[in-house]
């Protein structure tokens, strides 16, 4: 492809400019992908180098350190204690004791069971005394997996702390040899509200995220490689176990399965995914442009009662979504108010199938979503519109731009620049917009051909509602839900990555400032 210099580019005709931009966009893609892999490679390389450096540092600390340091390699915190940093030393020591204790009492067991996820399932035995069958419960796959993961987390934490302990010793030796004094326990406590205040502030939120988000996500990713479901719950009926990539094979294979439908899983997945993307696209952009339009209408010079109009719309944000969505969904039902009204006016003879036909249902949810989303977008757009410097419009008007040109050359580019990241998050947010779909249609109408052994898949089902249905369905195929979840993650992250890397508008955020 021919590369133009800036001046040559400016001389091209409008059409040629577009063509050139398009060409260079696509020609840049291989480079971008290459850069991505290079970046990945660099990260891996960096990690390897880091590990090597750490190992060398640990080695040299041991070789050059004094006896206090050397003992600290075995007894954590010994160096600190011996050098008078009682608080730190005790904390290190305590952690080591707790860790070793835990590993002996429980951790070792969980870890050893992790490869098998339990050996002995529940068994029924005839009990002579009570003259009945009694079930004895044995291994618990669920707990093994959970605590196994937890134990691995714990081991990582221990290695990190041990490394910290080694570093501490090296640092302390350096400080002492330069003739300075070490920090006392009192200094350490004081620094927690001063120069180390961020650690204090972050500890609580991060523990929460670690336990309630990171751990569950790791657990659920692992579940995708097991056969954990309603009939293999790991304790009460059957143990579950590792199955490798079988679940991914099932989900992504094109052969029809034996479940409810006639379609293969891959085909169903493809259908749901394409509707999810379609939905996210329409839901995001219809709201975006209509919201902007409403905001501009209210903001227009000479319109009175601006506050009233805004308040009416904002009011609808206040009312919990489940009420309005459930109610509106009933309004559009066959015997709902809308149909009732239309029929009583004599405009239609029989009820409109808002929720009963695929295309009707899809269009209706998008329209109702506009109803839900506009107030929000109106607020956002109002804030941004007010921030556009008025002199831009004034100079455009002097240059002879009409209202449409002002909108398309100033307002819209400005909005797109400022809200670029917001658009991305709102797109991915809409992909996972559980509430609107589930409360409005519950996924209906049902797609009879779609296969999902655990219940039905509907034409308005998003990946996320499908996932919910799989877990709550009769067979509770957690492993399949987990596979869907991982695929959702892959799709969302791919979209984000592409948008962030390829679209210049998000990177050049400062262009308009």
């Amino acid at each position, binding site marked *: 492809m021919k590369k133009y210099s800036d001046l040559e580019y400016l001389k091209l005709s409008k059409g040629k400019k577009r063509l050139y931009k398009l060409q260079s966009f696509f020609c840049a893609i291989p480079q971008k992908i290459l850069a991505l892999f290079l970046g990945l490679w660099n990260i891996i390389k960096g990690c390897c180098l880091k590990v090597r450096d750490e190992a060398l540092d640990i080695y040299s600390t041991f070789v050059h350190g004094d006896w206090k340091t050397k003992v600290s390699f075995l007894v954590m915190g010994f160096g600190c204690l011996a050098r008078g940093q009682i608080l730190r030393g005790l904390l290190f020591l305590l952690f080591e004791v707790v860790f070793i204790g835990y590993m002996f009492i429980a951790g070792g067991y969980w870890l050893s069971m992790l490869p098998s996820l339990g050996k002995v399932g529940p068994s029924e035995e005839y009990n002579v005394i009570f003259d009945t069958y009694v079930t004895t419960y044995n291994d618990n796959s669920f707990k093994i997996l959970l605590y196994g993961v937890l134990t691995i987390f714990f081991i990582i934490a221990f290695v990190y702390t041990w490394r910290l302990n080694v570093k501490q010793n090296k640092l302390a030796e350096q400080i002492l040899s330069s003739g300075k004094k070490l920090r006392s326990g009192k200094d350490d406590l004081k620094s927690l*509200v001063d*120069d180390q*205040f*961020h650690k204090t*502030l*972050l500890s609580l*939120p*991060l523990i*929460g*995220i670690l*336990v*309630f*988000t*990171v751990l*569950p*996500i790791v*657990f*659920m990713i692992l579940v995708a490689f097991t056969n954990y479901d309603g009939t293999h719950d790991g304790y009460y009926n059957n143990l579950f176990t590792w199955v490798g990539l079988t679940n991914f094979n099932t989900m992504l294979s094109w052969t029809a399965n034996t479940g409810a439908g006639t379609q293969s899983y891959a085909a169903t997945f493809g259908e749901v995914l394409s509707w999810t993307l379609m939905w996210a696209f329409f839901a995001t952009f219809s709201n975006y442009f209509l919201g902007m339009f*409403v905001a501009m*209408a209210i903001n227009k010079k000479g*319109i009175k009662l601006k506050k009233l109009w805004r308040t*009416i*719309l*904002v*009011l609808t*944000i*206040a*009312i*919990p979504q*489940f*009420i*309005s969505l*459930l*109610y509106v969904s*009933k*309004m559009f039902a066959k*015997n*709902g*108010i809308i*149909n*009732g*009204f239309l029929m009583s006016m004599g405009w239609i003879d029989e009820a409109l199938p808002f929720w009963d036909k695929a295309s009707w249902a899809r269009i209706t949810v998008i329209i109702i979503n506009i109803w839900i989303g506009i107030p929000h977008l109106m607020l*956002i757009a109002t*804030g941004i519109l007010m921030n556009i410097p008025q002199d831009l419009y004034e100079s455009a008007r002097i240059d*002879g731009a*009409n209202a449409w040109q002002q909108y398309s050359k100033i307002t819209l580019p400005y909005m797109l620049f400022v*809200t670029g*990241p917001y658009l991305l998050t709102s797109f*991915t947010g809409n992909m*996972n917009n559980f*509430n609107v779909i*589930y409360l409005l249609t519950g996924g209906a109408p049902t797609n009879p051909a779609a296969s999902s052994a655990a219940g039905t898949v509907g034409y308005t089902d998003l990946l996320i509602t499908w*996932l919910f249905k799989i877990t*709550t369905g009769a067979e509770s195929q957690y492993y399949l839900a*987990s596979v869907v*979840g991982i695929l*959702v*993650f892959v799709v*969302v*992250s791919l979209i984000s990555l592409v948008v962030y890397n390829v679209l210049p508008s998000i990177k050049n955020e400062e262009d308009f400032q």
Partner: protein
Amino acid sequence: MTQNEMNQKTSGPVKQHMGLRASRMLSNSAIYVLLIAISIIWLIPFVCIVLQSFRVESTWQVGYVIPQQWGLDNYRNLFNTDFPRWYVNTFISALATAVLQTIIVLCMSYTLSRFRFKMRKPLMRFMLILGMFPGMLTMIILYRVLKDLGLTQQNSVPGLILVYVASSGMGYYVSKGFFDTIPKSLDEAARVDGATRFQVLKKIILPLSKPIVIYTILTAFMAPWGDFVFARYIAFGSSAGSNVAVGLYNWLNKDQIAKYYTTFCAGGVMVAIPVTVLFMCLQKYYVEGVTGGAVKG
């Protein structure tokens, strides 16, 4: 050629003025019509809910809006159900969530806005990636863990609060955006003046952050009223452990709807009232938060 130019050519400046005014009048009245239409469309469902909550003659959907017979039967009926229990459940979890979540979000966002430590960028990137996993997946395991702890079904309230609050640190974006707008030199001036980091937060930043604190409290308080997925999973069929969303949802099931439709409307009104009143009072802060958050991304 624009209207403007045309007027200029055909007649003098006086007429042009008239033309401008006329065209503005026209477009303005079109906008008024539009705004009135929008207002009606947006308010109709709520007006309908309120009207139907006072309907006595039938508990099932009807094809008209204005009740033939008015009365408070539906509201009275609410007290014969588990609705008061759901209401209390939701209120408690909303209150607790508002307090705890605000503390956590503020800690997180203030730190990420003000401190420059080595792990800051990786941490933010990590949370961004975490956010791409559908949160619903974690429900399965959280349910089983909470069940083992005895915090599900009729005891679901503490469990729910725990779930709402624990991961709330991930939603730091909006308030971080706000903190970023407070000049850093204020922190620095205070530190030079002899304040510790904690004193900077207490004496300088927090007093300046009233809008975002209120925004955070407001959104945290409102979320549990509308939460459906987690609440339903954790209540797991127990009516006593449900919140309003789950309880009212069940009334619209095929086998319940005929009996409970108008009661649902009454319940909806009861739920909407406190939230809406609170929201209207604090609307200003909400608007600030939303607009600021979108610009910052």
